[in-house]
């Protein structure tokens, strides 16, 4: 399948990229891994007049802790996250999610930043970043701004990015010393989008729960932060009853639709079960830390 015609630009640095994006405004799209954008263009669901290929811009592929946060450059591929020992050791939610994204070949090209900008409600990174309380760094003609991920992800395929702006990085707060988390995903086969999935993160302080992060994938118009469930957990004892109640609240926060992958009731049930399982796993990791 051919995409519609477009002009291809390959800037060598960030300034050049921003200039091109400013010049072409809404008619421009950023090409990073291309693993969502190109399929969408082939199906003619998108037909941008200009593609700005940012793959050759140096300095956007960093994945390292920096001060009180993990800094993820816009060009960090899923595979880099999957292979990182630092991620495996300290960011269990990300470590669990990375190998479940699409398939290994797609993960060689697809990027974390691109996935967030695509804002697919079935995207996995959106939930991971909500659970971890991450922020995104955006640059545009007016300079740089930092937004909490919850403000960035607005709606289905819609973010807070203005025309002319580029996501340059993501910042994930360093988790507390005693913390844990995971990502649980129900998929029909490797490479399929989630039927439903959950990202869970817990901080422990003196045996009680500090901050809890719970976010849901593919059960609403965007990745959903289960704020009632989080509030129920914060400050509570980590018991099975508390987890079960939080899971029920998370299932209520979901608004799935029935489709080929399952009925709305089934998906809500998956959320309930996965949040309970995810919390138990997060607690196990936190206690072992």
């Amino acid at each position: 399948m051919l995409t519609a015609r477009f002009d291809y630009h390959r800037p060598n640095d960030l300034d050049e990229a921003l200039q091109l994006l400013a010049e072409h405004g809404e008619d421009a799209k950023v090409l990073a891994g291309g693993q969502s954008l190109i399929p969408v263009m082939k199906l003619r669901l998108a037909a941008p007049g200009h593609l700005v290929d940012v793959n050759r811009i140096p300095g956007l592929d960093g994945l390292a802790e920096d001060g009180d946060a993990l800094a993820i450059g816009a060009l960090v591929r899923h595979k880099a996250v999957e292979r990182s020992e630092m991620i495996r050791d300290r960011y269990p939610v990300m470590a669990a999610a990375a190998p479940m994204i699409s398939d290994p070949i797609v993960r060689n090209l697809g990027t974390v930043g691109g996935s967030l900008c695509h804002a697919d409600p079935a995207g996995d990174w959106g939930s991971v970043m909500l659970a971890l309380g991450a922020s995104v760094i955006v640059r545009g003609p007016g300079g740089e701004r930092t937004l909490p991920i919850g403000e960035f992800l607005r709606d289905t395929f819609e973010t807070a990015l203005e025309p002319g702006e580029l996501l340059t990085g993501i910042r994930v707060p360093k988790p507390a010393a005693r913390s844990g988390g995971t990502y649980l995903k129900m998929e029909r086969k490797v490479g399929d989008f989630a039927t439903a999935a959950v990202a869970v993160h817990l901080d422990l302080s003196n045996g009680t729960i500090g901050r809890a992060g719970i976010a849901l994938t593919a059960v609403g118009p965007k990745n959903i932060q289960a704020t009632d469930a989080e509030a129920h957990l914060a400050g509570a004892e980590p018991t099975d009853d508390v987890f079960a109640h939080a899971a029920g609240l998370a299932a209520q926060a979901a608004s799935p639709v029935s489709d080929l992958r399952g009925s709305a009731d089934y998906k809500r049930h998956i959320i309930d079960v996965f949040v309970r399982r995810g919390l138990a796993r997060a607690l196990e990791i936190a206690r072992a830390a």
Partner: protein
Amino acid sequence: MQITVTVNGAERTADVEPRMLLVHLLREELGLTGTHIGCDTTSCGACTVLLDGVPVKSCTMFGVQADGREVTTVEGLMSNGTLHPIQAAFKEEHGLQCGFCTPGMMLTGAALLKDNPTPSDDDVRWAISGQICRCTGYMNIVKAVQAAGRAMAAETAGAAGVTS
């Protein structure tokens, strides 16, 4: 747009529309029809090639993105008239039935063996999980990749004069 891509070790130039997919660049502009088009929707992996040694789906990348980079297709596996060990192993282990997925499977297998010369069944199955064999001949694909790994290890040991 004028681009130069190193394909199977040789620099090739082409003047292409930016929207031309890498798979069409390879098949139609460069005549390398060993790279197959299956689903054209990033699902089946029949069009897998190596970009700077890493497997990518060539239906989900524009040819212009490969400008200045190295692409390996199935035609590049053989050298000096000798089959690559992965090709020899696919032949020996009956790793192909209809052959449609084979070029992509062999390239992914070769890339896996560079990272992991002795992959387990799970390692191979994981590596090829983005590719579909419509004959469902996965068992022998897995065996073939592992056999190629053993053959390559024996070759290396032989070259180094190691006996076991």
